[in-house]
């Protein structure tokens, strides 16, 4: 759900959590993807991918009546705003037009030429891409390693780890952000206390957010911590689908642990891994809440990523058209990734 789009699952979590929502969407492919015949010889029942149900006859009116409310709702809250975003990007809508209800003047491509000619925009874009890359790489690497680790630890450790993951997953984004703000507090934060014990009293009162690099380190830690539960649990579910006898056979044939992983485990979990990575790219690129809330709802310009940049142009500078134009550029930048994600879904038979 978009209001809770976050860097994590709630996205996972918001949503938020958040991030939790998307987990349902992708938890399913996680399970089914591994059944893809191309990867593992799964004995599939002679029904194939069309799961069981015989369909009613084609061309009836009833299904259209059933989906009508959903279509109207999605059109009102997703499609219409998207069209409106496009229209507003070619106008000049400011505070006056918003309150008087006058039709804003058309300005053609002016908003876009202004934005693309602004060096700040390119700074923000570079920052967003860098932030997204760092978060996704660390999240996916750590997530895969923890998922592999979960297979190798004793049962009670696995249970403890799962409980910790689910607890971290279920925390509302705002609560998680508050905890990290408290941990990194310059006066009484635990991080400063612990570091001061090592490097000396001078470190107390250190403000993590004065230097954007340090600030983004805290933000990334929050984003990665929030995203890990979804990634680990999904990848672990995929790992349990790897046939044990295949691994044993590879071991008997002389493969070492890395060889087993490379030639037996990886091919099975790859579709799920690719899917989760793609989602992480999109979520982390759209990351909004963590930065916004850690900076007390008023992020400094050095902390703006594309989402925040668009938000502050619209609501702080009340140039709504600039805001929508930036949002539109973001959508275009991400559309390639989204199409790739969709193709993966179709390939694994999710959109059947």
């Amino acid at each position, binding site marked *: 759900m*978009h*209001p*809770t789009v976050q860097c994590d699952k709630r996205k996972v979590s*918001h949503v*938020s959590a958040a991030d*939790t*929502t*998307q987990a*349902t969407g992708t*938890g399913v492919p996680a*399970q089914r993807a591994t059944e893809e015949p191309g990867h593992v010889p799964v004995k599939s029942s002679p029904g194939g991918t069309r*799961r*069981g*149900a015989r*369909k*009613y006859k084609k061309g*009836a009116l009833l*299904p259209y009546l059933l*989906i009508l*409310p*959903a279509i109207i*709702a*999605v059109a009102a*809250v997703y499609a219409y*705003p998207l069209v*409106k975003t496009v229209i*507003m990007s070619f106008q000049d809508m400011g505070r006056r037009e918003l*309150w008087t209800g006058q039709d804003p003047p058309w300005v053609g491509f002016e908003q876009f030429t202004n934005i693309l000619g602004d060096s700040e925009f390119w700074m923000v874009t570079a920052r967003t891409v860098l932030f997204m890359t760092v978060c996704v790489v660390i999240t996916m*690497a750590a997530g895969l*390693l923890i998922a*592999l680790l*979960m297979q190798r*630890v*004793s049962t009670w*450790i696995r249970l403890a*780890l799962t409980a*910790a993951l689910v*607890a*971290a997953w*279920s925390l509302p984004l*705002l*609560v998680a952000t*508050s*905890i990290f703000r408290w*941990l990194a*507090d310059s006066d*009484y934060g635990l991080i400063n206390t612990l570091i001061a014990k090592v490097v000396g009293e001078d470190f107390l009162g250190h403000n993590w957010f004065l230097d954007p690099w340090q600030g983004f380190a805290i933000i990334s830690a929050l984003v990665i*911590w929030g995203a890990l*539960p979804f990634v680990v649990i999904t990848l672990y579910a995929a790992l349990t689908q790897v046939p044990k006898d295949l691994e044993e056979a590879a071991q008997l044939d*002389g493969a070492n*642990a*890395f060889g087993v992983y490379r030639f037996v485990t990886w091919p099975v979990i790859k579709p799920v891994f690719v899917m989760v990575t793609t989602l992480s790219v999109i979520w982390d690129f759209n990351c*909004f809440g963590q930065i916004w809330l850690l900076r007390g709802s008023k992020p400094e310009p050095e902390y703006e990523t594309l*989402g925040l940049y668009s938000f502050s142009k*619209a609501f702080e500078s009340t140039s709504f058209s600039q805001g929508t134009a930036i*949002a539109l550029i*973001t*959508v275009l930048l991400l559309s390639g990734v*989204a199409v790739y994600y*969709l193709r993966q879904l179709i390939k694994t038979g999710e959109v059947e």
Partner: protein
Amino acid sequence: MSASASTPVAKSDAAGVRGDAGPQQVLRPDRKKTRLGYNIIGLVVTVIMAFPVYWLVISALRPNHEIRSYDQTLWPSSITFDNFKRAVNQPNFDTAIQSSLIVAIAAVVGGMVIATLAALAIGRFNFFGRKALLMVLILVQLLPPTAMLIPIYAQLNTMGGLNEYWGLIVVYLVSTLPFAVVMIRGFVVNIPVELEESAMVDGCTRMGAFRRVVFPLLAPGLAAASIFALVNAWNEYLFAYVLMNDNDKYTLNVWLMTFTTERGTDFGALMAGSTLIALPVVVFFMIVQKKMAAGLTSGAVKG
């Protein structure tokens, strides 16, 4: 992160040992030793993941003079509920609960009705545009929030929906649709059509067959989907913050922001308030987590 970064080393060590070990007898003690190493790393990861949650609860329970201290300790010297008292006495706590409940419940009820209808259509009928609808539902979830927020704000402004519950309800309702439709469809697909058909042969109308046969089987799926939707509406803050202007219409998440003023943040009360807000979510989440796992595996088994 350092803990997990060290895993590849441990793993490849183990790899060498296990791979080179020729005879089977040698393999066992080695395996035990590496298991211990994995367990230690696993424990470290568990502590890292759980620590922020622990810190939330412990900060909410410790006395305020320990919160405002340059020497933070990992254990509280004593436990107090003062922070909770201050959080509950913070202005607008009751109206925030009320707003959150009104908005979340209305959105979820409406969302589930619409999502069930659409899921039935997608799961039971083979109509033109079915795939396209699914794709649209998946794609809209990937849109950046600000791309929606600005036009929705402008539109609600002209319709007089700003600062009204219904504006927020509509937004939340629709945003629950994509995943609710996909999720409920998963349950619909797993109910054999033959059950419905035999009910109709026995004299049920299509509506009757749905009410007596399909709906009871669908109920667990609906419960899981609604809890997920509820949790998400409960956790949302961005739209609530932008679309609502009055203090007494703030939802709980926006209310949480009032603990930060120009004079600083009352972290004790903030942690206590956060605990109160997170508690129902964590409990609900644990419930659904189980249901989800059951739903997913039953789906997988039936192939």
